[in-house]
């Protein structure tokens, strides 16, 4: 009953949005969906499994590059290219895991930055992939078959579909043994090993699945913006943004990154739209102040804060009930 209560308005909103907003707002909504999808993908390894990656742009870029290179040089249909991108990202994630998983905490986070920077340097130098000049996705073949559209609406459905797919995968994983294993690894890796969890393997599983979905997001970017270069799809700033989306909403929760994406993208867009034209950096100042504010006042993210609040209330009620019971029994004893 209760989930239905949330689900119905959500479905309604999803159907109504494209009908009521103009192309530019729809574009903003698409940006939200895309950011959410990345946050949700990142969350799998960064949130559930607690391996804070700041190098996810590597997977994103690899997705974008794989589908684009295959399309340009072999005329491969982007639908297949997208899958290929996912697979290539999974392959990269193996190297990623191999080189970084023995590291802990901040060491891991920094190493992921390093790996992603290396990938960016590679693409900056890689002639066949357009090097620093980047690649244009040809606009000549349009329509659903070629995942290339003159209007925004199909991209909305694509982004939405991809987000739902990613959410569904997360939902399934969260509830399966994998979800338990990921959380065990995050909480107490040593204890996780003592109950037979091969932490290297399951971290890798989390990373690979996460990489796969991140790459899909990258391919979508390429198909939407039609131009990619190492800077725009492989930069560390992008990796950080994926993490931010998840953190802002609440890591390790299914819908946290979605909430985070809504908030972060709104802050980003509105501060820039309102103040960006001034040319004095006001937009950046406002954007930064807002995210600092959220980080400081909602350190577990908006959704994390919300659930914690609920839990605390429940615990308080519980505790006072217990205290009352104890008091009653104590007075009985005394009597």
């Amino acid at each position, binding site marked *: 009953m209760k989930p239905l209560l949330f689900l119905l308005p959500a479905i309604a909103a999803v159907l109504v949005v494209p009908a009521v907003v*103009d*192309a*530019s*707002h729809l*574009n*903003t909504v698409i*940006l939200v969906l895309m950011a959410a999808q990345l946050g949700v993908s990142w969350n799998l390894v960064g949130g559930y499994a607690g391996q804070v990656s700041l190098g996810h742009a590597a997977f994103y870029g690899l997705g974008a590059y794989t589908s684009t290179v295959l399309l340009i040089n072999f005329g491969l249909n982007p639908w297949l290219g997208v899958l290929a991108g996912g697979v290539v990202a999974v392959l990269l994630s193996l190297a990623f895991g191999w080189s970084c998983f023995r590291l802990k905490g901040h060491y891991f986070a920094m190493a992921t930055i390093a790996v992603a920077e290396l990938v960016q340097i590679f693409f*900056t*130098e890689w002639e066949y992939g357009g*090097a*620093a*000049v*980047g690649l*244009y996705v040809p*606009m000549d073949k349009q329509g659903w078959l070629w995942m290339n559209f*003159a*209007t*925004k609406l199909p991209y909305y459905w694509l982004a939405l579909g991809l987000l739902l797919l990613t959410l569904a995968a997360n939902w399934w994983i969260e509830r399966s043994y994998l979800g338990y294993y990921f959380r065990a690894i995050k909480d107490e890796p040593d204890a996780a090993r003592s109950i037979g969890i091969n932490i290297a393997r399951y971290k890798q599983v989390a990373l690979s699945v996460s990489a796969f979905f991140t790459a899909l997001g990258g391919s979508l*970017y390429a198909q939407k*913006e*039609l*131009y990619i*270069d190492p*800077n*725009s799809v492989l930069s560390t700033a992008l990796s950080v943004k994926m993490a931010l989306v998840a953190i802002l909403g609440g890591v390790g929760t299914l819908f946290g990154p979605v909430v985070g994406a809504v908030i972060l993208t709104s802050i980003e*867009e509105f501060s*820039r*739209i309102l103040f*960006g*034209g*001034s*040319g004095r*950096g006001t*937009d*950046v100042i406002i954007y930064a102040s807002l995210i600092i504010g959220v980080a400081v006042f909602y350190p577990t993210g908006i959704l994390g804060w919300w659930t914690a609040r609920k839990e605390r209330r429940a615990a308080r009620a519980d505790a006072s009930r217990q205290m009352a019971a104890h008091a009653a029994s104590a007075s009985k004893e005394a009597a």
Partner: protein
Amino acid sequence: QQEVKIGVLYPLTGPGAAVGAELRSALELAADIINNGAPGVPELPLSAGKGLPNLKGAKIKLVFADHQANPQTGASEAERLITQEKVVALVGAYNSAVTATASQIAERAGVPFLNPESSSASLTQRNFKWFFRTTPHDDLFVHNAFEFLKELEAKKGIKPAVVASLNENGLWGTETTKLQTKLAPEYKLNIAKQVMYPAKTTQLTSEVQTLKAANPNLVLQSSYTADAILSIKTYKELGFLPDMILANNAGFTDTDFVKTLGKDADYVITREVWALDLASRNPLIKQVNDLFNSRYKINFTGNSSRTFTGLMVMADAINRAGSTEPEAIRQALVATDMPGNKLIMPWKGVKFDATGQNTLGQGILTQIIDGKYHTVWPFNLASREVVWPMPKWDQRK
């Protein structure tokens, strides 16, 4: 009274903000001249201050958007300017990567996009219908540089025996390197060493040492501002200097370049598209620059003058279209044929080919002497003889 909204996309924050600020000033001046007029520039189109006469004196209204040098942001802002701000045309976006995505939005929406200063050659190889570029692109610039060397040899018998290049490894530097590699044989130049470096570098020691080892007579260089400054400092620190540095605009023409390096900037030759000393041939240049200088206390640069020109061309086209209908504007742009004397650029004029590229543009070469940029090529425009070779560091006073 009617308003004509033009969306402009520039990097107003982030790494490109310094340039963005200058371009913004140039645009404001251009709009102000069109809307309110300016004394002493009668030759400049639309300078009577009556707005756009063919549109009942409609005023130009610029809607600024900050793309932060981010292609996705550029695309989003283009989308917003078109759908929400209802701009009739777009001008931007300096960074070639952003121009790439933003113009793609305009193309799909069917809104004219005029690009005054992005130099990536590929931008006009996309067969876009709505994309126009007033500036020459890197292909031409590299040609210009090599042409200059050829003429220099013919005229003065100077031929650099060993040529090396030092280019940043981003979009622009990479494309330039490729073009140099491709064109050098045609000009019988042998590029002995090609060095590329990351623009955001903290040191250029290894780069300069590599150059030093190659011992070139000429260094072709493409750098942004910080790295351009850093490179000259490193040359000096390590006591390296070729006979000539033939630089490729950007950092070398940034206002801060000469300001920072002072005398050390002298003798560098850089590709440009504009120079103040061209005023002797085209009075418009000085007139408009005076306006600019009195307002913002800086002179035009190749970048800001091109952006200024871009907006003028756009405004002219809208005026000729006599309408704010996109298709009408596009046709007016296609029909553009502005003579050189109406421009503040040393160009033969503005006329677009089928790809949207201005075919009458041209680059010039300037040499910095006593902190000023002097036109030294094309020889017929030159205000000064080329000083070649540059005096070594220890021979300067």
